[in-house]
């Protein structure tokens, strides 16, 4: 007979090992195979592998502390205090071989498993979102920092082909940023549906980018993909001999098809009409009340950070640039676009307990991305908690946008963040401009401090 055992005691110095040895000796005398995992103060030694457990005829738990039990589901199992194994190992082995099978069915185990289930259900959507976000964060920081580096060579240096600046832009903007939304969507779907989720998730995310629906479209694509795969897994029943086709052929093809069509025809349509409506609206606002225009631009820049609404405002701003002349609208656009990452970076410092460790690290990069006018730096935070973060950054950007207009700040270039502030004549009313950005940053951080919940 093959028997596996786990021994553990509170101090983990002596009893754990004596019990293990006693079991070994007894098993040897009784001509059984025995493997004992000791969970002493040095940690688990001689750990039982899945293979060991699978091959075992019986399991002995001799422990006075908690031992992970799930792995023994369905095995003959006996659980006793550690001293029992020391004083009565042979008897224990006999009992184990005729023991009842372990089924997490006793009342307290049942309660535990229900509790856990509820916990994971409640955390379901949030967990999926966070999985996607945590895979996305490094893409955002890598891409953003490299783009910012290209600005060091001059704001438009990247337009010169073959230069380092152009290469940096191609790496950061053209590649890392281009992967950002597919990665977000792909790993949201992965979290929901495991590996088969990645294909439709990434394809859907790629489409979210190309139809211009930004990261909000990416989140939709991710959930759509994950649940589509789950649905297909349940509803497609293949004969056993063809089951191998599911992961390599059936699931990827059909899930990508469904998600892709939905993205293009259901999500894509509204997105482009939103784009047009936004543009028309901004045109109509132009020349009326400039403070209101600044406010609207702020709201738009922060709403989807690089998505269609943001792009509409940005394009509108660039359209007001006349070569060599400063535009007040463009100034408001850039200032409002710098606020979201800056506000979040500040928030990770003033509201430390409301961000995960990973987010706090991303907060450091967000400073660099914010001052470089890379609004996307805020996306990981917004994707993780859209309902609280997006309103906070919209408010901050709106304040900054209207202040920038009120102070009659102007900007003569379409991008660059902090790098243009020092270029003579690029910015009109520099001090007021910086003040406008700083105020919006504080508004955003303050709102997040008030709204966001503590991380549990």
């Amino acid at each position: 007979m093959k028997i596996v055992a786990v021994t553990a005691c509170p101090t983990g110095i002596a009893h754990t090992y004596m019990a293990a040895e006693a079991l070994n000796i007894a098993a040897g005398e009784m001509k059984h195979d025995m493997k004992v995992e000791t969970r002493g103060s040095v940690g688990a030694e001689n750990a039982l592998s899945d293979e060991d457990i699978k091959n075992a005829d019986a399991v002995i738990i001799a422990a006075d502390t908690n031992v992970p039990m799930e792995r023994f589901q369905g095995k003959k199992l006996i659980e006793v205090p550690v001293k029992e194994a020391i004083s009565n190992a042979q008897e224990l082995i006999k009992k184990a071989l005729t023991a009842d099978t372990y089924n997490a069915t006793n009342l307290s185990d049942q309660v535990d498993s229900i509790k856990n289930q509820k916990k994971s259900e409640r955390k379901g959507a949030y967990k999926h979102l966070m999985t996607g976000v945590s895979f996305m964060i490094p893409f955002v920081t890598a891409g953003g920092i490299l783009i910012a580096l290209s600005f060091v060579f001059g704001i438009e240096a990247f337009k010169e082909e073959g230069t380092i600046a152009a290469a940096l832009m191609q790496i950061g903007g053209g590649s890392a940023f281009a992967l950002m939304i597919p990665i977000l969507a792909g790993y949201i779907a992965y979290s929901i549906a495991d590996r088969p989720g990645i294909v439709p998730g990434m394809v859907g995310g790629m489409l979210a980018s190309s139809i211009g629906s930004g990261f909000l479209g990416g989140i939709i694509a991710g959930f759509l993909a994950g649940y589509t795969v789950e649905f297909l897994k349940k509803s497609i029943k293949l004969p056993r001999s063809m089951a191998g086709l599911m992961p390599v052929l059936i699931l990827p093809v059909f899930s990508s098809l469904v998600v892709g069509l939905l993205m293009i025809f259901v999500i894509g349509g509204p997105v482009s009409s939103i784009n047009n409506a936004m543009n028309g609206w901004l045109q109509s606002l132009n020349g009326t009340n400039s403070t209101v225009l600044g406010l609207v631009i702020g709201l738009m820049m922060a709403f989807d950070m690089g998505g269609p609404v943001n792009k509409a405002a940005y394009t509108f701003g660039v359209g007001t640039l006349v070569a060599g002349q400063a535009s007040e609208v463009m100034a408001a656009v850039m200032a409002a676009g710098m606020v979201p990452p800056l506000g979040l970076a500040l928030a990770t410092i003033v509201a430390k307990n409301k961000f995960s460790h990973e987010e706090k690290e991303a907060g450091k990069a967000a400073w660099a991305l914010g001052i470089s006018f890379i609004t996307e730096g805020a996306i990981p935070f917004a994707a993780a908690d859209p309902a609280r973060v997006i309103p906070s950054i919209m408010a901050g950007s709106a304040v900054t946008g209207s202040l920038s207009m009120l102070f009659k700040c102007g900007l003569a270039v379409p991008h660059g963040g902090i790098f243009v502030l020092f270029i003579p004549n690029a910015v009109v009313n520099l001090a007021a401009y910086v003040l406008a950005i700083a105020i919006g940053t504080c508004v955003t951080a303050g709102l997040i401090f008030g709204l966001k919940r503590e991380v549990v």
Partner: protein
Amino acid sequence: MQIRDLLTESLMIDELVNNTKDSVLTEMVEKLALTDKLSNKEMFHKAVLEREAEYSTGIGMGIAIPHGKSSGVKEASLVFARSKAGVDFDSMDGKPAHLLFMIAVPEAANDDHLKILGTLSRKLMHQSIREALMNATTYEDVIAVFEDA
């Protein structure tokens, strides 16, 4: 790191003077306090008694292994004591303890020490080793029993 580093010659009590559980525990703690292994004797003694209160470390077969993990311990160490008459240790099998090992471990013990103590504990489960320990006449004999096994 070897067993002789934990159990030094000065930590061996060839024959205990006392014969009750409490007095024997005190005798062994005092022995340890003569060396520089403890920074706070009372704290360690208290840890041993607290552990003993959970359930006796008299594990039967004539063996007891009182132990304590405490910040009053500077360095992991081991006191080995014998009693021909035996000490009533409330052992699991009701029989008196003849071989007593008192283990002192600091709060932040290093894994090497813990592994040696684990190995030693395993060896005590073998009857041949227990007999050899009862029959050993010198410190070197005792060390040899562990090292040869």
